[in-house]
């Protein structure tokens, strides 16, 4: 979100406080996994209060429960993620400094020439996929993806996507191609003004993260009709995926952890272990289900190839559309 990104970042020693406020359930907590360093800094490129930041701060509470180390979240925002990547890439590979990875760092690497790119980081483990959905306003007659496509065939479709270079834009463009319609895809700056345009009927639909549109969803001002995720969202299991609806477009907006190159295998193994344990934690499940995050574990071995493929696909898309050369 451009709005968020425009802001700034700060060092936050809050994680420590969050630990003190941990629920009493820590008493019967399982044996904590030993970790080679005492303090682990998780670096994010998002500013305090923005998507990745909120995600990390919640994650830290549960990391604390399973791992014998103190976790600190630091925001390092400059250069659309370039600064955070450089910082982690040049850190000592002992597991003390890790990066909260999301598609942003790949997009920045592809769109500009930062000092360090995603190739200078070692992908470690994936935790979640954001739930990307197609939403329409409550009064809209569009109930399914088919309705949407039919509408776009008869009239000029008006579709919204949050940011010009975003994955949401990519998904909308690919849906257009897959359905062979010529809808206008209008990109915005952040989800806020797009939401208003969906609510006031300027747009037929918007593509956005479930987390961002929750307020309107729960107030029943909008309806969600399908998700771009590979599988159905657990908390909304009766909503189909776009792929099920007959258009082969899948969007995986991942959230995981990456570190400097040459991490010892012992550390990547710990994270493989931790990621699975945390995702299975019943308390955490309650939290992430409420936010419609879809758990999506990928271990160290497959995560590298996954990121490489993601970057290759995104790069190919950007090249085919002429956004980069």
């Amino acid at each position, binding site marked *: 979100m451009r*709005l968020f990104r425009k802001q*700034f970042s700060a060092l936050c020693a809050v994680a420590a406080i969050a630990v003190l406020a941990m629920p009493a359930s820590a008493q019967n907590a399982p044996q904590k996994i030993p970790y080679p360093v005492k303090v682990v800094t998780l670096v994010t490129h998002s500013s*305090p209060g923005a998507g990745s930041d909120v995600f990390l701060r919640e994650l830290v509470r549960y990391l604390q429960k399973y791992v014998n180390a103190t976790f600190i979240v630091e925001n390092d925002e*400059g*250069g659309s993620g370039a600064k955070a990547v450089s910082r982690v890439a040049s850190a000592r590979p002992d597991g003390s400094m890790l990066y909260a990875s999301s598609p942003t760092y790949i997009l920045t690497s592809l769109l500009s020439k930062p000092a360090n790119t995603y190739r200078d980081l070692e992908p470690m483990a994936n935790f979640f996929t954001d739930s990307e959905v197609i939403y329409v306003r409550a009064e809209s007659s569009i109930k399914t993806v088919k309705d949407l496509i039919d509408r776009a065939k008869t009239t000029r479709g008006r579709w919204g996507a949050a940011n*010009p270079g975003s994955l949401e834009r990519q998904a909308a463009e690919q849906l257009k191609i897959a359905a062979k319609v010529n809808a206008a895809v209008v990109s915005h700056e952040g989800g806020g003004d797009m939401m*208003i345009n969906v609510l006031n009927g300027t747009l037929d639909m918007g593509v956005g993260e479930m987390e961002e549109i*929750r307020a309107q969803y729960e107030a029943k001002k909008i309806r969600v009709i399908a998700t771009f995720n590979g599988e159905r969202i657990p908390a909304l299991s009766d909503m189909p995926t776009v792929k099920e609806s007959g258009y082969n477009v899948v969007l995986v907006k991942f959230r995981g952890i990456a570190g400097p190159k040459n991490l010892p295998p012992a550390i990547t193994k710990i994270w493989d272990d931790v990621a699975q344990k945390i995702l299975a934690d019943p308390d955490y499940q309650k939290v992430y289900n409420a936010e419609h995050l879809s758990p999506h574990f990928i271990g160290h071995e497959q995560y590298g190839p996954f990121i490489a493929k993601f970057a290759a696909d995104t790069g190919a898309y950007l090249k085919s559309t002429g*956004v980069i050369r």
Partner: protein
Amino acid sequence: MEQFFTAVSMLFTTWVVPAALGGLIWGILGGATPGLSASITMALLLPFTYAMPPMPAIVMLATCYIGAEYGGSIPAILIRTPGTNASAATIMDGYEMNRQGRAGEALGLSLWSGVVGGLFGLAMLILLTEPLSRLALLFKPTTYFGLGILGLSVIASLSSKSLLKGLAAALVGLMISTIGTDPISGVSRFTFGAPDLLDGIAPLFVMVGLYAMTELMMRAGIMGNIIKPNASIRVRLPRLPMMKKVARSQAIGCGIGTVEGLMPGAGGTVAAFIAYNECKRWSKTPEEFGHGAPEGVAGPEAANNTVASASLIPLLSFGIPASNSGAVLLGGLLIHGLLPGPRLFEQNSDVVLGIYVGSFVADIAQVVVGAVILPLCVWLVNRPKPYRSAFILALILSGVYTVHMSLFDVGIVLASGMLGYFMKYFGYPFLPAVLGVVLGNLVESNYRRSLVLSGGDLGIFLEDPIAIGFFIAAALIMAGALLAEWRASRVRKAVSA
């Protein structure tokens, strides 16, 4: 009535008062630091609120916003540096008053206008959230384009000496605004591969460079103080006759601030500039503007302080942030598990009530806090000039770094300072350039967005009644400015003949 008693009891039984005061003081200090805009000041506060219960945490953030919008005027008046984007409009007459030895009066005026604007915005928030939030839903890309054009039209009437030079400055400002990721297609423009430029150049950096850095350069080594020593460091709140004199400007500011508060993305900056222009137009003494007119401080300050409360309307009712500051507040709500939107008013009415009560406390407390810190600020800027210059430079370079923790941004400020020096040297006004930087993106992206929606049909702009209203207002402003220019040139000819 029952709500009222709950609100009163809140004052004594909860943390709302300390939270409001804490947020206010932090906000004023942050807002007064050049570089730290309201949103950054709030983002710096955010981590400290994580461990608090939700209500005081949110109150603290909301009052921090109020404090920051006010605080930005302090350096604008005293050292010609906008503390926040929105306070750039205050420089014109506020700094001029300071130069005339009227710093105490100017600070008192901005404080008083901050209180008026804050209370007005709060009243709108409490009484009219429902109807105003419905109004906010009417804003489309075409409306934003109209607003942007209205903002740009102000250039015509504020390029005091030469319309042509004003136009040139505006074009350079617009050029700066095109740096970064293209808002529609996502390609990079003028970034030369630097990731630091992908998000564009923040208007605040340009403003700090143009105003503060240029001023330091222009006055380098000149011992003669251009600022008349302030006879007294006392900060004077306006007396009744003055209050009456500026009431009209404040009313204009409050009205414009309310509308802009509702429009996501527009923010207080546009409100402050349009308010300045309108105050000048409706003033009985427009010729005083730019030469230390009290209305020129009162109008913009009332406007940007109204925005601080009015922008909570779309945020609380839809969860849509109307500004960067709103986005930070939204983050604060989310972190505390609060979901803004219609249900917030039912499920977490204590938080909503807390925001009302806290904002009220903060608006009133501004006067007391101001009375304590303002004399200190005036004393500080009256130190010997070598020290003052050194500390101003240290302050702006440190403050700007804080935004993205990037020395690259410090470089942008220096580059803007150089640009400002040349503009000043050749007699080009700053204001059009600043408006160009602030509005460029708004105008361009919404123009193109509208055309994408209509399939290239320009008729779409005529389907939006609010946009038409903005166009007409813009046309009137421009026509007025041209008329004034024509009259002035006739007077000149008559004199020289």
